[in-house]
Protein backbone atom coordinates (compact mmCIF):
# COMPACT_ATOMS: atom_id res chain seq x y z
CA UNK A 1 0.00 0.00 0.00
CA UNK A 2 1.76 3.09 -1.21
CA UNK A 3 0.45 6.59 -1.56
CA UNK A 4 0.72 9.05 -4.41
CA UNK A 5 1.73 12.67 -4.05
CA UNK A 6 1.68 15.74 -6.21
CA UNK A 7 3.90 18.79 -5.86
CA UNK A 8 3.18 22.07 -7.58
CA UNK A 9 3.25 25.81 -7.25
CA UNK A 10 -0.23 26.65 -8.42
CA UNK A 11 -3.49 26.15 -6.62
CA UNK A 12 -4.56 23.84 -9.39
CA UNK A 13 -2.90 20.77 -7.93
CA UNK A 14 -5.72 20.77 -5.39
CA UNK A 15 -7.92 19.36 -8.11
CA UNK A 16 -5.81 16.22 -8.05
CA UNK A 17 -6.59 15.71 -4.40
CA UNK A 18 -10.17 14.98 -5.44
CA UNK A 19 -8.82 11.73 -6.79
CA UNK A 20 -7.10 10.74 -3.57
CA UNK A 21 -3.68 12.16 -4.28
CA UNK A 22 -1.89 14.08 -1.55
CA UNK A 23 -1.24 17.58 -2.81
CA UNK A 24 1.70 19.64 -1.55
CA UNK A 25 1.92 23.29 -2.41
CA UNK A 26 5.49 24.60 -2.48
CA UNK A 27 6.90 28.08 -2.87
CA UNK A 28 10.41 27.52 -4.16
CA UNK A 29 12.86 24.82 -5.14
CA UNK A 30 14.45 24.26 -1.71
CA UNK A 31 11.01 23.57 -0.29
CA UNK A 32 10.26 21.21 -3.17
CA UNK A 33 13.47 19.25 -2.53
CA UNK A 34 12.57 18.95 1.15
CA UNK A 35 9.07 17.69 0.35
CA UNK A 36 10.36 15.17 -2.19
CA UNK A 37 12.92 13.79 0.26
CA UNK A 38 10.29 13.55 2.96
CA UNK A 39 7.83 11.77 0.68
CA UNK A 40 10.54 9.39 -0.47
CA UNK A 41 11.20 8.37 3.12
CA UNK A 42 7.47 7.94 3.71
CA UNK A 43 7.12 5.23 1.07
CA UNK A 44 5.32 7.29 -1.50
CA UNK A 45 5.25 5.27 -4.71
CA UNK A 46 4.69 8.02 -7.24
CA UNK A 47 5.28 11.75 -6.98
CA UNK A 48 3.95 14.00 -9.70
CA UNK A 49 5.88 17.24 -9.97
CA UNK A 50 5.00 20.14 -12.24
CA UNK A 51 7.43 21.02 -15.01
CA UNK A 52 8.37 24.43 -13.66
CA UNK A 53 9.67 22.84 -10.44
CA UNK A 54 11.22 19.79 -12.07
CA UNK A 55 13.37 22.06 -14.25
CA UNK A 56 14.89 23.69 -11.17
CA UNK A 57 15.83 20.50 -9.33
CA UNK A 58 17.51 18.14 -11.80
CA UNK A 59 19.85 16.73 -9.10
CA UNK A 60 16.99 15.52 -6.93
CA UNK A 61 15.25 13.97 -9.92
CA UNK A 62 18.49 12.21 -10.85
CA UNK A 63 18.87 10.92 -7.30
CA UNK A 64 15.62 8.95 -7.53
CA UNK A 65 15.81 8.17 -11.21
CA UNK A 66 16.93 4.57 -10.95
CA UNK A 67 15.22 3.50 -7.74
CA UNK A 68 11.77 1.99 -8.01
CA UNK A 69 10.23 4.11 -5.23
CA UNK A 70 9.56 6.94 -5.51
CA UNK A 71 8.87 7.34 -9.20
CA UNK A 72 8.96 11.03 -10.01
CA UNK A 73 6.86 11.96 -13.02
CA UNK A 74 6.81 15.47 -14.46
CA UNK A 75 3.37 16.80 -15.35
CA UNK A 76 2.59 19.97 -17.30
CA UNK A 77 1.89 23.25 -15.53
CA UNK A 78 -1.35 25.07 -15.56
CA UNK A 79 0.12 27.39 -18.13
CA UNK A 80 2.37 25.29 -20.40
CA UNK A 81 5.98 26.44 -20.38
CA UNK A 82 7.63 27.38 -23.63
CA UNK A 83 10.34 25.23 -25.17
CA UNK A 84 11.03 21.52 -24.81
CA UNK A 85 9.67 20.01 -21.63
CA UNK A 86 11.83 18.27 -19.04
CA UNK A 87 10.03 15.01 -19.67
CA UNK A 88 10.79 14.93 -23.39
CA UNK A 89 14.38 15.97 -22.74
CA UNK A 90 14.91 13.23 -20.20
CA UNK A 91 13.41 10.70 -22.60
CA UNK A 92 15.83 11.85 -25.29
CA UNK A 93 18.74 11.48 -22.87
CA UNK A 94 17.66 7.96 -21.95
CA UNK A 95 17.29 6.98 -25.60
CA UNK A 96 20.73 8.39 -26.36
CA UNK A 97 22.23 6.52 -23.45
CA UNK A 98 20.66 3.23 -24.49
CA UNK A 99 21.11 3.32 -28.23
CA UNK A 100 24.28 5.38 -28.34
CA UNK A 101 22.83 7.65 -30.98
CA UNK A 102 20.50 10.59 -30.93
CA UNK A 103 17.41 9.17 -32.57
CA UNK A 104 14.13 10.91 -32.14
CA UNK A 105 11.41 8.61 -30.88
CA UNK A 106 8.67 11.01 -31.94
CA UNK A 107 9.78 11.09 -35.56
CA UNK A 108 9.79 7.34 -35.90
CA UNK A 109 6.18 7.25 -34.84
CA UNK A 110 3.80 6.21 -37.59
Amino acid at each position, binding site marked *: *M*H*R*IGIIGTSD*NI*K*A*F*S*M*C*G*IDAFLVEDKSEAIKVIDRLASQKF*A*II*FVTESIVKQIPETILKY*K*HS*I*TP*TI*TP*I*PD*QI*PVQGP*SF*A*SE*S*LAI*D*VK*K*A*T*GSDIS*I*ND*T*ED
Partner: protein
Amino acid sequence: MAVLDINPTRMELNKLKDRLLTARRGHKLLKDKRDGLMRKFLETAKKAAKFRIQIEKDILNANLQFELSKVNTSPQLVNTAVIMSRQDLTVDISTSNIMGVCTPSFSINKRHNSSENISYSLSQNSAHLDNSIHLYDDIISKLITLSELEKTISILSDEINQTRRKVNALEHLIIPNYQDTIRFITLKLDENERSNIARLSRAK
Protein backbone atom coordinates in the same frame (compact mmCIF):
# COMPACT_ATOMS: atom_id res chain seq x y z
CA MET B 1 48.74 -7.64 -29.19
CA ALA B 2 48.61 -7.84 -25.45
CA VAL B 3 49.89 -10.88 -23.67
CA LEU B 4 48.79 -11.44 -20.09
CA ASP B 5 51.50 -11.67 -17.47
CA ILE B 6 51.55 -15.40 -16.72
CA ASN B 7 54.02 -18.29 -16.92
CA PRO B 8 54.06 -20.12 -20.27
CA THR B 9 53.26 -23.56 -18.89
CA ARG B 10 50.91 -26.27 -20.05
CA MET B 11 48.74 -25.88 -16.97
CA GLU B 12 48.26 -22.16 -17.56
CA LEU B 13 47.45 -22.93 -21.18
CA ASN B 14 44.64 -25.30 -20.18
CA LYS B 15 43.29 -22.81 -17.66
CA LEU B 16 43.31 -20.05 -20.26
CA LYS B 17 41.53 -22.20 -22.81
CA ASP B 18 38.78 -22.82 -20.28
CA ARG B 19 38.53 -19.13 -19.54
CA LEU B 20 38.36 -18.27 -23.21
CA LEU B 21 35.45 -20.66 -23.63
CA THR B 22 33.62 -19.09 -20.67
CA ALA B 23 34.29 -15.61 -21.97
CA ARG B 24 32.93 -16.50 -25.40
CA ARG B 25 29.81 -18.01 -23.91
CA GLY B 26 29.34 -14.98 -21.64
CA HIS B 27 29.80 -12.67 -24.59
CA LYS B 28 27.13 -14.44 -26.59
CA LEU B 29 24.68 -14.42 -23.68
CA LEU B 30 25.26 -10.74 -22.89
CA LYS B 31 24.85 -9.83 -26.53
CA ASP B 32 21.51 -11.61 -26.61
CA LYS B 33 20.53 -9.83 -23.40
CA ARG B 34 21.48 -6.47 -24.88
CA ASP B 35 19.45 -7.10 -28.02
CA GLY B 36 16.45 -8.24 -26.03
CA LEU B 37 16.60 -5.24 -23.72
CA MET B 38 17.00 -2.88 -26.64
CA ARG B 39 13.94 -4.24 -28.40
CA LYS B 40 11.87 -3.87 -25.23
CA PHE B 41 13.32 -0.43 -24.57
CA LEU B 42 12.47 1.02 -27.97
CA GLU B 43 8.99 -0.44 -27.74
CA THR B 44 8.43 1.16 -24.33
CA ALA B 45 10.00 4.47 -25.32
CA LYS B 46 7.76 4.85 -28.35
CA LYS B 47 4.71 3.99 -26.30
CA ALA B 48 5.66 6.43 -23.55
CA ALA B 49 6.33 9.28 -25.97
CA LYS B 50 2.93 8.88 -27.58
CA PHE B 51 1.24 8.47 -24.25
CA ARG B 52 2.80 11.59 -22.82
CA ILE B 53 1.67 13.80 -25.68
CA GLN B 54 -1.86 12.57 -25.25
CA ILE B 55 -1.88 12.89 -21.48
CA GLU B 56 -0.52 16.43 -21.53
CA LYS B 57 -3.47 17.42 -23.68
CA ASP B 58 -5.83 15.69 -21.28
CA ILE B 59 -4.35 17.50 -18.28
CA LEU B 60 -4.68 20.89 -19.95
CA ASN B 61 -8.28 20.11 -20.76
CA ALA B 62 -9.04 19.01 -17.20
CA ASN B 63 -7.31 22.10 -15.80
CA LEU B 64 -9.47 24.21 -18.04
CA GLN B 65 -12.63 22.55 -16.77
CA PHE B 66 -11.51 23.02 -13.20
CA GLU B 67 -10.80 26.69 -13.84
CA LEU B 68 -14.20 27.09 -15.43
CA SER B 69 -15.82 25.60 -12.37
CA LYS B 70 -14.31 28.44 -10.35
CA VAL B 71 -15.78 31.11 -12.57
CA ASN B 72 -19.35 31.00 -11.34
CA THR B 73 -18.72 29.55 -7.92
CA SER B 74 -16.89 31.12 -5.03
CA PRO B 75 -13.43 29.61 -4.40
CA GLN B 76 -14.51 28.56 -0.89
CA LEU B 77 -17.34 26.48 -2.28
CA VAL B 78 -15.05 24.81 -4.81
CA ASN B 79 -12.53 24.10 -2.07
CA THR B 80 -15.23 22.56 0.09
CA ALA B 81 -16.39 20.44 -2.80
CA VAL B 82 -12.84 19.30 -3.46
CA ILE B 83 -12.36 18.28 0.15
CA MET B 84 -15.78 16.61 0.31
CA SER B 85 -15.26 14.47 -2.74
CA ARG B 86 -11.87 13.27 -1.67
CA GLN B 87 -11.43 9.57 -2.22
CA ASP B 88 -8.89 7.09 -1.00
CA LEU B 89 -6.36 5.95 -3.50
CA THR B 90 -3.29 3.84 -3.02
CA VAL B 91 -1.07 1.90 -5.36
CA ASP B 92 0.46 -1.51 -5.00
CA ILE B 93 3.88 -2.08 -6.47
CA SER B 94 4.87 -5.35 -7.98
CA THR B 95 7.98 -5.91 -10.02
CA SER B 96 8.10 -7.55 -13.37
CA ASN B 97 11.21 -9.09 -14.76
CA ILE B 98 12.52 -8.09 -18.19
CA MET B 99 15.62 -10.14 -19.03
CA GLY B 100 16.69 -10.19 -15.40
CA VAL B 101 16.01 -6.50 -14.84
CA CYS B 102 13.41 -5.60 -12.26
CA THR B 103 10.92 -3.00 -13.43
CA PRO B 104 7.97 -1.74 -11.43
CA SER B 105 4.33 -2.19 -12.27
CA PHE B 106 1.75 -0.23 -10.33
CA SER B 107 -1.81 -1.26 -9.68
CA ILE B 108 -4.39 1.14 -8.33
CA ASN B 109 -6.55 0.54 -5.27
CA LYS B 110 -9.61 2.76 -5.02
CA ARG B 111 -11.72 2.78 -1.92
CA HIS B 112 -14.66 4.46 -3.58
CA ASN B 113 -15.12 6.28 -6.79
CA SER B 114 -15.72 10.00 -6.50
CA SER B 115 -16.93 10.32 -10.05
CA GLU B 116 -19.80 7.97 -9.32
CA ASN B 117 -21.05 9.23 -5.99
CA ILE B 118 -20.75 12.95 -5.94
CA SER B 119 -20.65 14.22 -2.41
CA TYR B 120 -20.99 17.98 -2.77
CA SER B 121 -23.90 20.25 -3.29
CA LEU B 122 -25.06 20.04 -6.86
CA SER B 123 -27.08 23.21 -6.56
CA GLN B 124 -24.12 25.30 -5.51
CA ASN B 125 -21.43 24.01 -7.83
CA SER B 126 -21.21 24.26 -11.56
CA ALA B 127 -21.36 21.31 -13.90
CA HIS B 128 -17.76 21.98 -14.90
CA LEU B 129 -16.68 20.61 -11.56
CA ASP B 130 -18.46 17.33 -12.24
CA ASN B 131 -16.73 17.22 -15.60
CA SER B 132 -13.34 17.95 -14.16
CA ILE B 133 -13.71 15.22 -11.55
CA HIS B 134 -14.43 12.70 -14.29
CA LEU B 135 -11.49 13.96 -16.31
CA TYR B 136 -9.05 13.91 -13.39
CA ASP B 137 -10.15 10.40 -12.46
CA ASP B 138 -9.37 9.29 -15.96
CA ILE B 139 -6.06 11.16 -15.97
CA ILE B 140 -4.81 9.59 -12.76
CA SER B 141 -4.98 6.04 -14.03
CA LYS B 142 -3.25 7.13 -17.23
CA LEU B 143 -0.61 9.07 -15.32
CA ILE B 144 0.15 6.01 -13.22
CA THR B 145 0.66 3.95 -16.37
CA LEU B 146 2.86 6.71 -17.75
CA SER B 147 4.97 6.74 -14.58
CA GLU B 148 5.39 3.01 -14.89
CA LEU B 149 6.52 3.33 -18.51
CA GLU B 150 8.92 6.17 -17.82
CA LYS B 151 10.48 4.43 -14.83
CA THR B 152 10.90 1.31 -16.93
CA ILE B 153 12.65 3.39 -19.57
CA SER B 154 15.13 4.94 -17.16
CA ILE B 155 15.93 1.59 -15.54
CA LEU B 156 16.29 -0.16 -18.90
CA SER B 157 18.50 2.54 -20.41
CA ASP B 158 20.89 2.21 -17.48
CA GLU B 159 20.96 -1.56 -17.78
CA ILE B 160 21.47 -1.46 -21.56
CA ASN B 161 24.36 0.93 -21.10
CA GLN B 162 26.00 -1.40 -18.58
CA THR B 163 25.40 -4.50 -20.68
CA ARG B 164 26.81 -2.81 -23.76
CA ARG B 165 29.99 -1.92 -21.92
CA LYS B 166 30.36 -5.49 -20.72
CA VAL B 167 29.84 -6.83 -24.24
CA ASN B 168 32.38 -4.40 -25.66
CA ALA B 169 34.94 -5.17 -22.97
CA LEU B 170 34.61 -8.88 -23.64
CA GLU B 171 34.67 -8.48 -27.39
CA HIS B 172 37.51 -6.01 -27.77
CA LEU B 173 39.68 -6.59 -24.72
CA ILE B 174 39.25 -9.79 -22.79
CA ILE B 175 38.73 -12.31 -25.60
CA PRO B 176 41.58 -10.97 -27.83
CA ASN B 177 43.90 -10.92 -24.80
CA TYR B 178 43.14 -14.55 -24.04
CA GLN B 179 43.63 -15.51 -27.68
CA ASP B 180 46.98 -13.73 -27.87
CA THR B 181 48.19 -15.27 -24.64
CA ILE B 182 47.14 -18.75 -25.73
CA ARG B 183 49.04 -18.26 -28.98
CA PHE B 184 52.06 -16.97 -27.12
CA ILE B 185 52.12 -19.94 -24.75
CA THR B 186 51.67 -22.45 -27.57
CA LEU B 187 54.55 -20.90 -29.48
CA LYS B 188 56.73 -20.84 -26.38
CA LEU B 189 56.00 -24.49 -25.57
CA ASP B 190 56.74 -25.53 -29.16
CA GLU B 191 59.96 -23.59 -29.03
CA ASN B 192 60.96 -25.34 -25.80
CA GLU B 193 60.15 -28.68 -27.38
CA ARG B 194 62.30 -27.97 -30.41
CA SER B 195 65.24 -26.73 -28.39
CA ASN B 196 64.96 -29.83 -26.23
CA ILE B 197 65.10 -32.11 -29.29
CA ALA B 198 68.03 -30.18 -30.68
CA ARG B 199 69.84 -30.44 -27.36
CA LEU B 200 69.20 -34.21 -27.11
CA SER B 201 70.31 -34.92 -30.67
CA ARG B 202 73.49 -32.94 -30.08
CA ALA B 203 74.17 -34.94 -26.87
CA LYS B 204 73.83 -38.18 -28.84
